[in-house]
């Protein structure tokens, strides 16, 4: 798919020949994210008739819904959205704080504290791609009654940008500036043309905290702010109680800025325990209405669902379980560094071997026997699985063909059944973290490899070591002192720019950058680098999307990465609860719209 094709599709949507949904699904098939596809339509000015209206909100008055109970097996440990270290904290703070706009499940931007979504048509988005002007909603007040104004927005920018405050949201605010135009208008100016402008003040990392309560606590003093523990936001619920790691509770905000919302009079978010019993509490006993992140085997979930009190909801998102083959030599030191960029893996750099590996990974079995509904086989690196056929999304599993390819490339079987060429044997160490599904997947891959004459030694590392950034430990995944490894990478941002950069040459993980580089396989490809650099300044979303498709294809064609399954977000929801779910923002992003069917 190239630029022309995408433009053609946009026209089809404009003329009504295909629906928005079809358009988005087609682009997903080519490895683009939903929000990107949405952005293309937004940019082209294709009307967004029933974007968010597709969620039928029924209650006709505020309150009266009782208590909604959420269960997370990891409870929020802090409630300042700028400090959130994981999803659990983002969920907790989102109950009280709101961003200017949020992403819905179809990849559309929905205004929260903004009066409208900026676009080229309404003049909100600058033609040079460097500015965005946000009009703020008027008449919004913080929970303590103070008005919400442009000053608050400007303050949040300064607060998050200061490295001494140590905000986890800093990435969204460091390459831009924001200025106040009038009391309810702000202008964000980017340092360079930024095609994906909907990042600062948007979604999970865009939640706004009140200036009047945090002003005195910027920089190193940030940890002393009383409001860190007693949030005062603009959201649908007022703060009641917080016990770190255990419980967050709130009650209805009678002055919430949207009419008839929220439906529930109070909420409780309980933490702790394990995923299986959390599923039980929703699906079997109905003690809770919603449980988060069901990392439970699909068979067990199906059994629990049979109880009929609730159901499992699966929302596509950016998580990807994948296998990496090292391009560098992890066993010999070059200039005192293992897996140095100056070295070359003796056999894994051979295209024939890399090609054979794609045929030896039985993705269909991995999905069927391990992940079930909670992991969908894919070959694409960027983003979601292909619900709609993409021309090149075939993932064949064919050990015989793999053997033939290896045979033709000169890798002959020895007396021990292991292939070798010029004294180099196809013998590898395959590492991953300790986690039951991963160990099963390792076995499936090993079986096929043994058949094809490749010997795999399986190695398991404790997760807390494998995923640590401990410079002294040789078993971390960023060091990758091993031939093959498998883990899950997650696209945390709707835009894939920061996700796909893990294949840029300058991101290579080396001793010099203390193995902090994101390019862990050490994939070096001049074409890829060139396209990536171009995409960073390309303003036309269509051209830019075509570039991401090209980068995705580049990775798949060169066998830089072996995606296994896409891991959607899995939640348990009481059968009477109605909520708009989105894989591109928090589930509680639209907590104001949650309601219970009578």
């Amino acid at each position, binding site marked *: 798919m190239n630029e022309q094709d995408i433009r053609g599709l946009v026209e089809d949507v404009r003329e009504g020949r295909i629906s928005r949904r079809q358009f988005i699904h087609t682009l997903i098939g080519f490895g683009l994210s939903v929000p990107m596809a949405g952005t293309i339509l937004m940019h082209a000015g294709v009307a967004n008739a029933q974007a968010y209206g597709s969620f039928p909100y029924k209650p006709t008055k505020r309150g009266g819904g009782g208590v909604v109970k959420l*269960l997370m097996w*990891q*409870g929020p*440990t*802090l409630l*300042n959205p700028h*400090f959130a*270290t*994981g999803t659990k904290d983002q969920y907790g703070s989102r109950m009280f704080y709101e961003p200017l706009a949020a992403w819905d499940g179809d990849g559309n931007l929905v205004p929260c504290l903004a009066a409208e979504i900026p676009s080229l048509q309404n003049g909100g988005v600058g033609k040079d791609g460097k500015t965005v002007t946000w009009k703020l909603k008027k008449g919004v007040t913080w929970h303590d009654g103070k008005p919400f104004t442009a000053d608050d927005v400007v303050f949040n920018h300064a607060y998050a940008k200061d*490295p*001494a405050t*140590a*905000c*986890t*949201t*800093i*990435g*969204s605010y*460091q390459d831009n500036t924001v200025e106040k135009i009038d009391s309810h208008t702000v202008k964000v100016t980017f340092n360079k043309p930024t095609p994906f402008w909907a990042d600062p003040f948007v979604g999970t*990392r865009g939640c706004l905290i009140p200036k009047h309560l945090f002003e005195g606590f910027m920089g*190193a003093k940030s*940890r002393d702010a009383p409001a*860190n*523990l007693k949030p005062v936001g603009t959201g649908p619920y007022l703060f009641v*109680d917080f*016990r*770190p*790691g*255990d*419980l967050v*509770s709130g009650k209805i905000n009678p002055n919430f800025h949207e009419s008839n919302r929220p439906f529930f009079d*109070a909420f*409780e978010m*309980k*933490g*702790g*325990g*394990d995923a299986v*019993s959390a599923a*039980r*509490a929703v699906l079997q*006993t109905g*003690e*809770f209405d919603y449980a988060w992140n069901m990392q439970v085997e699909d068979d067990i979930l199906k059994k629990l669902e049979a109880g009929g009190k609730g159901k499992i909801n699966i929302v596509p998102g950016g998580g990807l379980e994948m296998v990496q083959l090292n391009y560098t030599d992890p066993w010999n030191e070059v200039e005192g560094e293992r897996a140095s960029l100056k070295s070359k893996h003796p056999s894994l750099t051979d295209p024939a071997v890399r090609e054979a590996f794609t045929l030896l990974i039985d993705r269909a079995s991995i999905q069927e026997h391990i992940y079930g509904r909670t992991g969908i086989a894919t070959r694409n690196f960027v983003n979601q699985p292909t619900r709609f056929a993409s021309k090149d999304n075939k993932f064949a599993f064919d050990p015989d063909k793999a053997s033939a390819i290896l045979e033709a490339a000169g890798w002959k079987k020895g007396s021990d059944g292991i292939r070798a060429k010029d004294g180099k044997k196809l013998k590898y160490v395959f590492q991953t973290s300790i986690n039951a599904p991963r160990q099963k997947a390792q076995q499936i891959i090993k079986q096929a490899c043994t058949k094809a004459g490749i010997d795999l030694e399986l190695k398991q590392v*404790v997760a*807390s*070591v494998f*995923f*640590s*950034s*401990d410079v002294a*430990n040789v078993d971390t995944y960023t060091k990758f002192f091993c031939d093959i490894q498998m883990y899950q990478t997650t696209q*945390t*941002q709707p835009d894939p720019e*920061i*996700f796909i*950069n*893990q294949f840029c040459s300058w991101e290579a993980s080396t001793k010099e950058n203390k193995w*902090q580089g*994101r390019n862990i396989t050490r994939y070096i490809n001049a074409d890829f680098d060139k396209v990536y650099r171009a995409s960073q300044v390309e303003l036309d979303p269509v051209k830019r999307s075509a570039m991401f498709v090209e980068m995705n294809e580049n990775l798949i064609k060169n066998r830089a990465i072996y995606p296994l399954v896409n891991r959607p977000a899995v939640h348990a929801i009481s059968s009477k609860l109605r909520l708009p779910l989105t894989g591109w923002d928090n589930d509680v992003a639209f907590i104001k719209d949650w309601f219970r069917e009578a």
Partner: protein
Amino acid sequence: MGKYLLRRLLIAIPSLIGISIVLFTVLALAPGDPFEELATNPNVPPEVRENLRKQFGLDDPIPVRYTRWVTSMAKGDWGFSFASRVDVDKLIKGRLPTTLIIIGSSQLLALLIAIPIGVIAATRPYSIFDQVANTFAFIGFSLPTFFTGILFILFFSIYLDWLPFVYRADIAETGWRFYWEHLKQSIMPVAVLGLFQGASWTRYVRSAVLDVIRLDYVTTARSKGLSEKVVVIKHALRNALIPVVTLVALQMPTIFGGAIVTEQIFRVPGIGSLLISAILANDTPVIMAVTFVFACLVIFFNLLADVLYGWLDPRIAYR
């Protein structure tokens, strides 16, 4: 007595320092990084993490960090949780009461089961009652708490739907409903812990009472014409309790350890579940503080046992 207590408390100080050094070193040498989640998040530049490490003094050598910890601890500053960005003592203060209530009532339940059943079984050895009590005691202490916990949940919450299995520390009800809800949600965790402990103590009380009930002074008491009740309770049981008190006091740390699992199963927001989440998040100051609180509890219960000896047996003098 006062002097004795003071001396014992002073002796406790070097042991606490020793414990803290061992804990601190082990934690410092263990793999893991409190800011691990930031490391895997591409949107957070490495400088933020380095900044946090510097702010919390994580890059200093271990002896320096330990001295800093001890001095601030001496000043009453328990440290600062990396994960919650809250003072550790606040976290512990919020959690400790729940743990003490749950563990306290489970131990009470255990004693209420163990003492009467053990005594009755010992006064009528090899009777039907003794056989049945023995059988249940064996079953009770061979089943681990995590197993009975899940069994209880499946039976009482899911099959019968009588009891909630998610413990909530703040219940919105008032008046008697408040106590009722608390009672309802405490039944399962307390029963799991109490029955387990009660089972092994029953065996212990039985054998301790069996040891003394045949001694000459008990026969003397009987021959004086004292009622059987007085003989058993005042003469036999009191002496039999000395080894039991030792056992109960020395088992306290194990009980806190076992309670961690039970707290996790029933989502009791106690100090044990705080410890587990802190360990998972590599939140060293919290791990340090919680394990230190455990160490203090162990020392305290040992002291309590020694004081109780004197009350039970006036021949033991405090010197």
